[in-house]
């Protein structure tokens, strides 16, 4: 099942941890908020994505099924 990273923008407070843990999948904009690709997370990066999700201090990051 293809999944993608999704940010709840109302919960995200711009800690930026996601971009440190998963630089292949997340970059930060000039205000420190994550820019995530809407492409499916490749299998090889599955663990990386999960780490970013579970470590988000604001619980704002999720792995969701690609619609």
């Amino acid at each position, binding site marked *: 099942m293809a999944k993608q990273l999704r940010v709840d*923008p*109302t919960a995200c407070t*711009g800690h930026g941890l996601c971009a440190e843990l998963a630089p292949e999948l997340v970059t930060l904009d000039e205000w420190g*908020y994550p820019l995530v690709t809407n492409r499916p997370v490749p299998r090889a990066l599955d663990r990386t994505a999960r780490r970013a999700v579970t470590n988000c201090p604001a619980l704002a990051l*999720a792995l969701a099924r690609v619609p």
Partner: protein
Amino acid sequence: MTGCLTLPFPAPVPAAGDYVLTGPDGGLHRLLPADGAAQVDLTAHLARYGALPHRAEPRRIIAEVEAAGLTGRGGAAFPAYRKLTAAANARPTPVVVGNGAEGEPASSKDRSLLWISPHLVLDGLQIAAATTGSRTAVLYAPRNERLHQRLALAIAERAAVRMDTAAVELRDAPGRFLAGEESALASHLTGLPALPGYRPARGLPRLGSGQPVLVQNVETLAHLALIARYGARWFRTAGTEEEPGSMLATLHHADGRMGVVEVPLGIPVAQLLGPREPVQAVLIGGYHGAWLPADQAATLPLANAALGPLGATVGAGVVAVLPADRCGLGETARVARYLALESAGQCGPCFNGLPRIAAALDHLARPRPDRRARADLDRWAGLVEGRGACHHPDGSVRFIRSALRVFAAETALHEQGRCSGTNPQPFLPLPSSPPLAHTDWS
């Protein structure tokens, strides 16, 4: 000859005597009376439209709404039957809300409708409640004492003759741009501030209790009341095949007059404008809408099929002309600042981006702007787009980008230290004092 209701902004409700007969040819009087801004009481309402056919099968009403092709008149033009179907299937039974928040400062059509023909809206609310099996309904109206007294009276008139099955509760909408956004509305009904929420899954918004909410714009409900009476075929005698029916539009003319008119969808924009108005551009769809050059706008019908490819939408029916003596960049910068202040401040990109975009636009509206301002603005616009919980950043960027397209020549003039605007008076309507306190959301 049709009626055009002129309302001085920011008058919260139309005043008697504001009605003038200078509307566009081809206008209609389905929702508003032809004989003036007189308030329609229950007796006059029933005399004109007849009793509401109450006992109709919910599925039959939904099928009729689908056949009619009624779309939401709050701005998004979402098919009404799809929302009604989702609500009819939702569990627990939804609460039905008539949304008259009308946070858009350039729009007056919803409060005009509520003020003049509240019973049509209340009829529609009952029909919507009947299709979903709801016993409770809410009328969400701008916070205004006179309007609330008027609506409370209309609700009492109906209760006195026991004509309704669903009890209607009147609720205050905070005077914020986003107060009518569905998830903000649901939050407000829950007793929380009227802030938009993040909803990754589509579907009806829910109250804190989990009860789903069917939100329909008040004008949509008024059309629903007429479709229930006269049917889809009648509804389609106005409008286009693709976009049937009539709509209320708020017009802002170059001489400062404004008015609410009812017109068929697809009416030529040229017919809405005065014959010889000194106009340089037309704003269609309000502050989440788009500017179009006046000569281009004059060739178009007021319909999404024609406006969509040009980046514009009918929206909630605002058509505002920009007089030839105003600077389009200056006007857009004023509104952009307002839109930045109306960010709920919940989403980082919107909270950070809109004020910077507004400041850059303000800079471009002045003589000899720094060359970096435009590049910054373009980059920031890209950064806020699609990154909010609600459509506020997207709509704001659409409006601002359209200004940079349509007023490209003006931008070039400013680079040379000149400006074509000769009249510094603000033109587009904005609230006199933007509410800044966080409590204003509740």
